Protein backbone atom coordinates (compact mmCIF):
# COMPACT_ATOMS: atom_id res chain seq x y z
CA UNK A 1 0.00 0.00 0.00
CA UNK A 2 2.69 2.46 1.03
CA UNK A 3 4.79 1.42 -2.00
CA UNK A 4 1.85 2.19 -4.26
CA UNK A 5 1.44 5.58 -2.59
CA UNK A 6 5.13 6.38 -3.05
CA UNK A 7 5.04 5.33 -6.70
CA UNK A 8 1.92 7.39 -7.26
CA UNK A 9 3.54 10.44 -5.68
CA UNK A 10 6.69 10.01 -7.79
CA UNK A 11 4.57 9.75 -10.93
CA UNK A 12 2.69 12.89 -9.94
CA UNK A 13 6.00 14.74 -9.55
CA UNK A 14 7.16 13.49 -12.96
CA UNK A 15 3.90 14.56 -14.56
CA UNK A 16 4.21 18.01 -12.99
CA UNK A 17 7.81 18.39 -14.18
CA UNK A 18 6.98 17.17 -17.68
CA UNK A 19 4.08 19.60 -17.87
CA UNK A 20 6.24 22.49 -16.64
CA UNK A 21 8.99 21.80 -19.20
CA UNK A 22 6.42 21.53 -21.99
CA UNK A 23 4.97 24.89 -20.96
CA UNK A 24 8.48 26.39 -20.95
CA UNK A 25 9.26 25.12 -24.41
CA UNK A 26 5.91 25.91 -25.99
CA UNK A 27 5.86 29.36 -24.37
CA UNK A 28 9.36 30.11 -25.60
CA UNK A 29 8.50 28.96 -29.10
CA UNK A 30 5.86 31.72 -29.13
CA UNK A 31 8.43 34.29 -27.99
CA UNK A 32 11.14 33.23 -30.46
CA UNK A 33 10.96 34.15 -34.13
CA UNK A 34 12.65 31.04 -35.51
CA UNK A 35 12.44 32.06 -39.19
CA UNK A 36 14.05 35.45 -38.56
CA UNK A 37 16.73 33.80 -36.43
CA UNK A 38 17.49 31.25 -39.11
CA UNK A 39 17.64 33.97 -41.76
CA UNK A 40 20.09 35.95 -39.66
CA UNK A 41 22.31 32.91 -39.00
CA UNK A 42 22.51 32.09 -42.69
CA UNK A 43 23.16 35.65 -43.80
CA UNK A 44 25.90 35.98 -41.15
CA UNK A 45 27.50 32.81 -42.42
CA UNK A 46 27.36 34.01 -46.03
CA UNK A 47 28.96 37.26 -44.95
CA UNK A 48 31.65 35.25 -43.15
CA UNK A 49 32.36 33.31 -46.36
CA UNK A 50 32.76 36.58 -48.25
CA UNK A 51 35.08 37.99 -45.60
CA UNK A 52 37.06 34.74 -45.62
CA UNK A 53 37.70 35.29 -49.32
CA UNK A 54 39.29 38.67 -48.57
CA UNK A 55 41.72 37.19 -46.04
CA UNK A 56 44.80 37.53 -48.20
CA UNK A 57 44.18 41.16 -49.03
CA UNK A 58 43.01 42.56 -45.71
CA UNK A 59 44.77 40.38 -43.09
CA UNK A 60 41.49 40.33 -41.16
CA UNK A 61 42.79 37.99 -38.46
CA UNK A 62 45.23 40.61 -37.20
CA UNK A 63 42.56 43.31 -37.23
CA UNK A 64 40.03 41.07 -35.57
CA UNK A 65 42.50 40.02 -32.92
CA UNK A 66 43.21 43.68 -32.14
CA UNK A 67 39.50 44.21 -31.51
CA UNK A 68 38.67 40.97 -29.75
CA UNK A 69 41.82 40.43 -27.74
CA UNK A 70 41.04 42.94 -25.00
CA UNK A 71 38.50 40.34 -23.89
CA UNK A 72 41.39 38.23 -22.68
CA UNK A 73 40.39 34.87 -21.27
CA UNK A 74 40.32 35.11 -17.54
CA UNK A 75 43.19 33.48 -15.73
CA UNK A 76 42.11 31.44 -12.74
CA UNK A 77 43.35 32.75 -9.41
CA UNK A 78 43.72 36.39 -10.42
CA UNK A 79 41.63 39.07 -8.69
CA UNK A 80 39.01 40.72 -10.90
CA UNK A 81 40.77 44.08 -10.75
CA UNK A 82 44.00 42.59 -12.11
CA UNK A 83 42.06 40.65 -14.77
CA UNK A 84 40.38 43.83 -15.97
CA UNK A 85 43.63 45.75 -15.96
CA UNK A 86 45.32 43.06 -18.02
CA UNK A 87 42.40 42.45 -20.29
CA UNK A 88 41.21 45.94 -21.06
CA UNK A 89 43.98 48.43 -20.58
CA UNK A 90 47.22 47.02 -21.88
CA UNK A 91 48.18 48.21 -25.36
CA UNK A 92 51.06 45.71 -25.28
CA UNK A 93 48.67 42.78 -24.73
CA UNK A 94 46.60 44.02 -27.65
CA UNK A 95 49.77 44.26 -29.77
CA UNK A 96 50.77 40.71 -28.87
CA UNK A 97 47.30 39.40 -29.66
CA UNK A 98 47.63 40.87 -33.13
CA UNK A 99 50.83 38.93 -33.83
CA UNK A 100 50.08 35.92 -36.04
CA UNK A 101 49.73 32.62 -34.15
CA UNK A 102 52.64 30.98 -36.00
CA UNK A 103 55.02 33.71 -34.79
CA UNK A 104 53.68 33.50 -31.24
CA UNK A 105 54.22 29.74 -31.23
CA UNK A 106 57.75 30.16 -32.49
CA UNK A 107 58.57 32.88 -29.92
CA UNK A 108 57.23 30.69 -27.11
CA UNK A 109 59.85 28.12 -28.07
CA UNK A 110 62.67 30.65 -28.35
CA UNK A 111 65.51 30.19 -25.84
CA UNK A 112 65.17 33.85 -24.77
CA UNK A 113 61.57 33.52 -23.62
CA UNK A 114 61.99 31.53 -20.40
CA UNK A 115 64.97 33.60 -19.15
CA UNK A 116 62.94 36.75 -19.90
CA UNK A 117 60.07 35.64 -17.71
CA UNK A 118 62.31 34.26 -14.97
CA UNK A 119 64.45 37.41 -15.16
CA UNK A 120 61.44 39.65 -14.53
CA UNK A 121 60.46 37.52 -11.56
CA UNK A 122 64.04 37.52 -10.27
CA UNK A 123 64.16 41.33 -10.28
CA UNK A 124 60.95 41.35 -8.24
CA UNK A 125 62.35 38.86 -5.70
CA UNK A 126 65.48 40.97 -5.32
CA UNK A 127 63.34 44.09 -4.78
CA UNK A 128 61.75 42.13 -1.98
CA UNK A 129 65.09 40.96 -0.53
CA UNK A 130 66.35 44.57 -0.55
CA UNK A 131 63.22 45.78 1.26
CA UNK A 132 63.69 43.07 3.90
CA UNK A 133 67.31 44.14 4.40
CA UNK A 134 66.38 47.76 5.11
CA UNK A 135 65.75 48.37 8.75
CA UNK A 136 62.62 50.48 9.07
CA UNK A 137 58.89 49.84 9.23
CA UNK A 138 58.09 51.39 5.88
CA UNK A 139 60.38 48.93 4.10
CA UNK A 140 58.70 46.10 5.99
CA UNK A 141 55.26 47.15 4.74
CA UNK A 142 56.69 47.46 1.24
CA UNK A 143 58.16 43.93 1.59
CA UNK A 144 54.70 42.64 2.44
CA UNK A 145 53.19 44.22 -0.69
CA UNK A 146 56.05 42.97 -2.86
CA UNK A 147 55.73 39.43 -1.45
CA UNK A 148 52.02 39.30 -2.25
CA UNK A 149 52.55 40.74 -5.74
CA UNK A 150 55.32 38.21 -6.35
CA UNK A 151 53.13 35.27 -5.26
CA UNK A 152 50.51 36.55 -7.69
CA UNK A 153 53.05 36.83 -10.53
CA UNK A 154 54.27 33.31 -9.89
CA UNK A 155 50.67 32.02 -9.84
CA UNK A 156 50.19 33.62 -13.26
CA UNK A 157 53.03 31.63 -14.82
CA UNK A 158 52.81 28.48 -12.67
CA UNK A 159 50.37 26.52 -14.85
CA UNK A 160 51.94 27.37 -18.17
CA UNK A 161 54.99 25.12 -18.02
CA UNK A 162 57.26 28.18 -18.20
CA UNK A 163 59.87 26.42 -16.11
CA UNK A 164 59.73 23.29 -13.96
CA UNK A 165 60.96 25.25 -10.94
CA UNK A 166 58.16 27.84 -11.00
CA UNK A 167 55.63 25.67 -9.13
CA UNK A 168 58.12 25.23 -6.26
CA UNK A 169 58.98 28.93 -6.37
CA UNK A 170 55.28 29.80 -6.14
CA UNK A 171 54.77 27.75 -2.98
CA UNK A 172 57.93 29.30 -1.46
CA UNK A 173 56.65 32.78 -2.33
CA UNK A 174 53.35 32.03 -0.62
CA UNK A 175 55.18 30.84 2.51
CA UNK A 176 57.31 33.97 2.42
CA UNK A 177 54.27 36.27 2.06
CA UNK A 178 52.65 34.46 4.97
CA UNK A 179 55.79 34.76 7.11
CA UNK A 180 55.95 38.53 6.50
CA UNK A 181 52.24 38.87 7.32
CA UNK A 182 52.75 37.04 10.60
CA UNK A 183 55.82 39.12 11.37
CA UNK A 184 53.95 42.39 10.81
CA UNK A 185 50.72 41.34 12.52
CA UNK A 186 52.43 40.05 15.66
CA UNK A 187 55.23 42.61 15.77
CA UNK A 188 57.99 40.00 15.96
CA UNK A 189 61.65 40.85 16.40
CA UNK A 190 64.36 41.17 13.76
CA UNK A 191 65.00 37.45 13.74
CA UNK A 192 61.75 36.89 11.85
CA UNK A 193 62.75 39.51 9.29
CA UNK A 194 66.14 37.83 8.82
CA UNK A 195 64.48 34.48 8.27
CA UNK A 196 62.21 36.04 5.64
CA UNK A 197 65.30 37.61 4.04
CA UNK A 198 66.93 34.18 3.80
CA UNK A 199 63.78 32.74 2.27
CA UNK A 200 63.79 35.51 -0.34
CA UNK A 201 67.41 34.71 -1.24
CA UNK A 202 66.60 31.00 -1.60
CA UNK A 203 63.79 31.95 -3.93
CA UNK A 204 66.04 34.32 -5.88
CA UNK A 205 68.66 31.58 -6.24
CA UNK A 206 66.16 29.09 -7.68
CA UNK A 207 64.87 31.63 -10.22
CA UNK A 208 68.39 32.81 -11.15
CA UNK A 209 69.28 29.20 -12.04
CA UNK A 210 67.04 29.58 -15.08
CA UNK A 211 68.53 32.95 -16.08
CA UNK A 212 72.31 32.78 -15.66
CA UNK A 213 74.42 30.21 -13.79
CA UNK A 214 77.03 32.68 -12.46
CA UNK A 215 74.35 34.98 -11.05
CA UNK A 216 72.79 31.98 -9.28
CA UNK A 217 76.20 31.13 -7.79
CA UNK A 218 76.68 34.69 -6.53
CA UNK A 219 73.25 34.68 -4.91
CA UNK A 220 74.03 31.34 -3.32
CA UNK A 221 77.12 32.82 -1.68
CA UNK A 222 75.11 35.82 -0.50
CA UNK A 223 72.96 33.55 1.66
CA UNK A 224 75.90 32.79 3.94
CA UNK A 225 77.23 36.37 4.11
CA UNK A 226 76.17 38.89 6.71
CA UNK A 227 78.57 41.78 6.01
CA UNK A 228 77.77 44.07 3.12
CA UNK A 229 74.77 41.95 2.23
CA UNK A 230 72.70 44.97 1.24
CA UNK A 231 75.46 46.29 -1.05
CA UNK A 232 75.79 42.88 -2.75
CA UNK A 233 72.05 42.56 -3.04
CA UNK A 234 71.84 45.91 -4.81
CA UNK A 235 74.57 44.84 -7.22
CA UNK A 236 72.80 41.54 -7.93
CA UNK A 237 69.59 43.44 -8.58
CA UNK A 238 71.26 45.83 -11.01
CA UNK A 239 72.79 42.88 -12.86
CA UNK A 240 69.43 41.05 -12.94
CA UNK A 241 67.70 44.13 -14.32
CA UNK A 242 70.26 44.39 -17.11
CA UNK A 243 69.89 40.70 -17.95
CA UNK A 244 66.08 40.87 -17.92
CA UNK A 245 66.17 43.97 -20.14
CA UNK A 246 68.50 42.24 -22.64
CA UNK A 247 66.24 39.20 -22.91
CA UNK A 248 63.12 41.38 -23.14
CA UNK A 249 64.63 43.40 -26.01
CA UNK A 250 65.45 40.13 -27.82
CA UNK A 251 61.81 39.00 -27.50
CA UNK A 252 60.56 42.42 -28.66
CA UNK A 253 62.76 42.13 -31.77
CA UNK A 254 61.42 38.65 -32.55
CA UNK A 255 57.86 39.98 -32.30
CA UNK A 256 58.74 43.02 -34.40
CA UNK A 257 57.70 45.38 -31.59
CA UNK A 258 58.98 48.94 -31.48
CA UNK A 259 58.87 49.18 -27.68
CA UNK A 260 59.38 46.95 -24.65
CA UNK A 261 57.01 48.98 -22.44
CA UNK A 262 54.51 46.61 -20.85
CA UNK A 263 56.08 43.55 -22.49
CA UNK A 264 57.18 42.04 -19.17
CA UNK A 265 53.68 42.20 -17.70
CA UNK A 266 52.14 40.94 -20.93
CA UNK A 267 54.47 37.93 -20.91
CA UNK A 268 53.68 37.25 -17.25
CA UNK A 269 49.96 37.37 -18.02
CA UNK A 270 50.38 34.68 -20.69
CA UNK A 271 49.68 36.84 -23.75
CA UNK A 272 51.85 34.50 -25.84
CA UNK A 273 49.95 31.42 -24.66
CA UNK A 274 46.36 32.32 -25.53
CA UNK A 275 45.18 30.60 -28.73
CA UNK A 276 41.52 30.41 -27.73
CA UNK A 277 40.33 32.33 -30.79
CA UNK A 278 43.04 31.43 -33.29
CA UNK A 279 43.07 29.55 -36.55
CA UNK A 280 45.96 27.07 -36.38
CA UNK A 281 44.65 24.95 -39.25
CA UNK A 282 47.33 26.05 -41.71
CA UNK A 283 50.24 25.80 -39.25
CA UNK A 284 52.58 22.80 -39.18
CA UNK A 285 52.40 21.79 -35.53
CA UNK A 286 54.43 18.60 -35.73
CA UNK A 287 57.25 18.92 -33.22
CA UNK A 288 55.83 22.15 -31.74
CA UNK A 289 55.72 22.24 -27.96
CA UNK A 290 52.11 23.04 -27.10
CA UNK A 291 52.45 22.55 -23.34
CA UNK A 292 50.99 25.53 -21.51
CA UNK A 293 48.94 27.00 -24.34
CA UNK A 294 45.28 27.89 -23.85
CA UNK A 295 42.79 26.69 -26.45
CA UNK A 296 39.01 26.58 -26.65
CA UNK A 297 36.58 24.01 -27.96
CA UNK A 298 34.64 26.51 -30.03
CA UNK A 299 37.27 29.10 -30.98
CA UNK A 300 40.52 27.31 -31.81
CA UNK A 301 40.81 25.77 -35.29
CA UNK A 302 43.26 22.88 -35.53
CA UNK A 303 44.97 21.36 -38.57
CA UNK A 304 43.00 18.63 -40.28
CA UNK A 305 43.86 15.25 -38.77
CA UNK A 306 44.65 16.57 -35.28
CA UNK A 307 43.86 13.88 -32.73
CA UNK A 308 41.34 15.85 -30.66
CA UNK A 309 40.76 12.98 -28.23
CA UNK A 310 44.46 12.85 -27.44
CA UNK A 311 44.68 16.65 -27.17
CA UNK A 312 41.67 16.80 -24.86
CA UNK A 313 43.05 13.94 -22.75
CA UNK A 314 46.24 15.88 -22.08
CA UNK A 315 44.49 19.19 -21.44
CA UNK A 316 42.88 20.58 -18.31
CA UNK A 317 39.61 22.49 -18.61
CA UNK A 318 40.02 25.69 -16.67
CA UNK A 319 37.73 26.79 -15.14
CA UNK A 320 35.58 23.61 -15.28
CA UNK A 321 32.80 23.65 -17.90
CA UNK A 322 34.23 26.79 -19.55
CA UNK A 323 35.35 25.08 -22.77
CA UNK A 324 38.81 26.65 -22.30
CA UNK A 325 41.70 24.22 -21.88
CA UNK A 326 45.38 24.36 -21.02
CA UNK A 327 47.66 21.74 -22.58
CA UNK A 328 49.64 19.81 -19.99
CA UNK A 329 52.76 17.63 -20.23
CA UNK A 330 52.13 14.35 -22.09
CA UNK A 331 52.47 11.26 -19.90
CA UNK A 332 56.04 9.96 -19.89
CA UNK A 333 56.54 6.69 -21.75
CA UNK A 334 57.01 3.91 -19.23
CA UNK A 335 55.83 6.10 -16.34
CA UNK A 336 54.08 4.14 -13.60
CA UNK A 337 50.37 4.74 -13.21
Amino acid at each position, binding site marked *: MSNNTATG*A*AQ*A*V*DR*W*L*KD*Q*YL*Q*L*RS*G*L*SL*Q*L*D*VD*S*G*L*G*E*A*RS*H*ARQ*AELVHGLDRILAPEAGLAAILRPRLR*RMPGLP*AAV*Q*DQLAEHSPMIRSLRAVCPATRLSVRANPDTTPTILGILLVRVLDLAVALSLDHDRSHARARDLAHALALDLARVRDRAVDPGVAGAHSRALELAHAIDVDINFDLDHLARDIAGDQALTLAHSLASGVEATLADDLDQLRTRDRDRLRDLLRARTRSRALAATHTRAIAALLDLTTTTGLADALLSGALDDFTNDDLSEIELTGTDLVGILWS*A*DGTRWPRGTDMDELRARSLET*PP*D*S*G*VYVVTEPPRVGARQ
Partner: protein
Amino acid sequence: MTEYEQAFSRFYRELVVPLTAYLVSQGASAHLAAEIAQDTMLKAYRKWHEIHWHKSWVYKVAYQAYVRHVTRVDAEPFEEVPEPTPLLPRPDQAEAWAQQREIIHLLRELPPRQQQVLALHHDGWTTGEIAELLGIGNATVRQNLHKARLAAARYITGRREE
Protein backbone atom coordinates in the same frame (compact mmCIF):
# COMPACT_ATOMS: atom_id res chain seq x y z
CA MET B 1 19.38 26.10 -51.33
CA THR B 2 22.19 23.55 -51.14
CA GLU B 3 21.83 20.22 -49.36
CA TYR B 4 24.04 21.52 -46.56
CA GLU B 5 21.89 24.61 -46.09
CA GLN B 6 18.77 22.47 -46.03
CA ALA B 7 20.27 20.18 -43.40
CA PHE B 8 21.24 23.16 -41.26
CA SER B 9 17.80 24.78 -41.63
CA ARG B 10 16.09 21.59 -40.45
CA PHE B 11 18.51 21.34 -37.55
CA TYR B 12 17.99 24.99 -36.59
CA ARG B 13 14.20 24.79 -36.71
CA GLU B 14 14.19 21.62 -34.66
CA LEU B 15 16.66 22.67 -31.97
CA VAL B 16 16.83 26.44 -31.47
CA VAL B 17 13.79 26.47 -29.14
CA PRO B 18 14.82 23.46 -26.97
CA LEU B 19 18.37 24.82 -26.83
CA THR B 20 17.12 28.23 -25.64
CA ALA B 21 14.81 26.52 -23.13
CA TYR B 22 17.77 24.47 -21.87
CA LEU B 23 19.80 27.63 -21.22
CA VAL B 24 16.84 29.36 -19.54
CA SER B 25 16.44 26.32 -17.32
CA GLN B 26 20.13 26.64 -16.34
CA GLY B 27 19.52 30.17 -15.08
CA ALA B 28 20.11 32.33 -18.18
CA SER B 29 17.75 35.22 -18.91
CA ALA B 30 15.57 34.73 -21.99
CA HIS B 31 17.59 37.38 -23.83
CA LEU B 32 20.97 35.83 -22.96
CA ALA B 33 19.73 32.32 -23.72
CA ALA B 34 18.48 33.38 -27.16
CA GLU B 35 21.73 35.23 -27.87
CA ILE B 36 23.92 32.27 -26.91
CA ALA B 37 21.67 29.80 -28.78
CA GLN B 38 21.88 31.96 -31.92
CA ASP B 39 25.62 32.43 -31.65
CA THR B 40 26.13 28.69 -31.13
CA MET B 41 23.95 27.89 -34.15
CA LEU B 42 26.03 30.28 -36.23
CA LYS B 43 29.20 28.50 -35.14
CA ALA B 44 27.61 25.14 -35.92
CA TYR B 45 26.71 26.38 -39.41
CA ARG B 46 30.28 27.49 -40.07
CA LYS B 47 31.80 24.25 -38.78
CA TRP B 48 28.99 21.99 -40.02
CA HIS B 49 31.23 19.52 -41.87
CA GLU B 50 33.74 19.28 -39.03
CA ILE B 51 31.16 18.40 -36.38
CA HIS B 52 30.25 14.78 -35.78
CA TRP B 53 27.20 14.94 -33.50
CA HIS B 54 25.58 18.29 -34.11
CA LYS B 55 22.99 18.12 -31.34
CA SER B 56 25.50 17.22 -28.60
CA TRP B 57 27.91 19.82 -29.98
CA VAL B 58 25.49 22.74 -29.78
CA TYR B 59 24.29 21.80 -26.29
CA LYS B 60 27.85 21.52 -25.05
CA VAL B 61 29.17 24.69 -26.71
CA ALA B 62 26.12 26.73 -25.66
CA TYR B 63 26.44 25.61 -22.04
CA GLN B 64 30.16 26.43 -22.03
CA ALA B 65 29.41 29.88 -23.44
CA TYR B 66 26.86 30.39 -20.68
CA VAL B 67 29.38 29.35 -17.99
CA ARG B 68 31.94 31.76 -19.44
CA HIS B 69 29.37 34.54 -19.43
CA VAL B 70 28.48 33.90 -15.79
CA THR B 71 32.18 33.91 -14.83
CA ARG B 72 32.70 37.20 -16.65
CA VAL B 73 29.58 38.89 -15.35
CA ASP B 74 30.55 38.14 -11.74
CA ALA B 75 33.27 40.75 -12.08
CA GLU B 76 31.08 43.18 -14.02
CA PRO B 77 27.94 44.05 -12.07
CA PHE B 78 26.36 46.12 -14.85
CA GLU B 79 24.07 43.98 -17.02
CA GLU B 80 23.53 45.12 -20.57
CA VAL B 81 20.06 46.36 -21.49
CA PRO B 82 18.54 43.63 -23.67
CA GLU B 83 18.10 44.72 -27.28
CA PRO B 84 15.61 43.06 -29.64
CA THR B 85 17.21 40.54 -31.97
CA PRO B 86 15.80 38.72 -34.99
CA LEU B 87 15.39 35.55 -32.91
CA LEU B 88 13.95 37.29 -29.84
CA PRO B 89 12.09 40.44 -30.95
CA ARG B 90 10.60 41.28 -27.51
CA PRO B 91 13.19 40.38 -24.88
CA ASP B 92 11.48 42.16 -21.95
CA GLN B 93 8.18 40.45 -22.56
CA ALA B 94 9.93 37.07 -22.90
CA GLU B 95 11.83 37.57 -19.67
CA ALA B 96 8.72 38.60 -17.74
CA TRP B 97 6.95 35.51 -19.05
CA ALA B 98 9.87 33.19 -18.20
CA GLN B 99 10.13 34.54 -14.66
CA GLN B 100 6.51 33.57 -14.01
CA ARG B 101 7.25 29.88 -14.75
CA GLU B 102 7.25 27.77 -11.64
CA ILE B 103 9.89 25.47 -13.08
CA ILE B 104 12.32 28.41 -13.12
CA HIS B 105 11.76 28.99 -9.40
CA LEU B 106 12.31 25.31 -8.65
CA LEU B 107 15.46 25.08 -10.77
CA ARG B 108 17.02 28.06 -9.01
CA GLU B 109 17.10 25.99 -5.84
CA LEU B 110 18.95 23.07 -7.45
CA PRO B 111 22.73 22.64 -7.87
CA PRO B 112 23.93 23.13 -11.50
CA ARG B 113 24.42 19.41 -12.19
CA GLN B 114 20.88 18.56 -11.11
CA GLN B 115 19.53 21.45 -13.20
CA GLN B 116 21.36 20.07 -16.25
CA VAL B 117 20.29 16.46 -15.78
CA LEU B 118 16.66 17.32 -15.11
CA ALA B 119 16.41 19.66 -18.09
CA LEU B 120 18.06 17.19 -20.47
CA HIS B 121 15.89 14.33 -19.21
CA HIS B 122 12.71 16.27 -19.93
CA ASP B 123 14.20 17.35 -23.23
CA GLY B 124 14.10 13.71 -24.29
CA TRP B 125 17.75 12.74 -23.74
CA THR B 126 18.39 9.19 -22.53
CA THR B 127 20.49 8.50 -19.43
CA GLY B 128 23.37 7.29 -21.64
CA GLU B 129 23.20 10.39 -23.85
CA ILE B 130 23.21 12.69 -20.83
CA ALA B 131 26.16 10.82 -19.34
CA GLU B 132 28.13 11.15 -22.56
CA LEU B 133 27.29 14.83 -23.02
CA LEU B 134 28.29 15.77 -19.47
CA GLY B 135 31.23 13.38 -19.24
CA ILE B 136 29.86 11.57 -16.17
CA GLY B 137 28.72 8.01 -15.44
CA ASN B 138 25.18 6.64 -15.91
CA ALA B 139 24.88 6.08 -12.15
CA THR B 140 25.73 9.73 -11.47
CA VAL B 141 23.05 10.82 -13.94
CA ARG B 142 20.45 8.63 -12.22
CA GLN B 143 21.56 9.86 -8.79
CA ASN B 144 21.24 13.52 -9.81
CA LEU B 145 17.88 12.89 -11.42
CA HIS B 146 16.66 11.19 -8.25
CA LYS B 147 17.80 14.09 -6.06
CA ALA B 148 16.22 16.63 -8.42
CA ARG B 149 12.91 14.74 -8.29
CA LEU B 150 13.01 14.73 -4.49
CA ALA B 151 13.64 18.48 -4.52
CA ALA B 152 10.72 18.92 -6.94
CA ALA B 153 8.45 16.89 -4.62
CA ARG B 154 9.44 19.10 -1.70
CA TYR B 155 8.82 22.20 -3.80
CA ILE B 156 5.34 21.05 -4.84
CA THR B 157 4.46 20.12 -1.25
CA GLY B 158 5.68 23.50 0.01
CA ARG B 159 3.69 25.32 -2.64
CA ARG B 160 0.49 23.47 -1.65
CA GLU B 161 1.01 24.38 1.99
CA GLU B 162 1.39 28.08 1.24
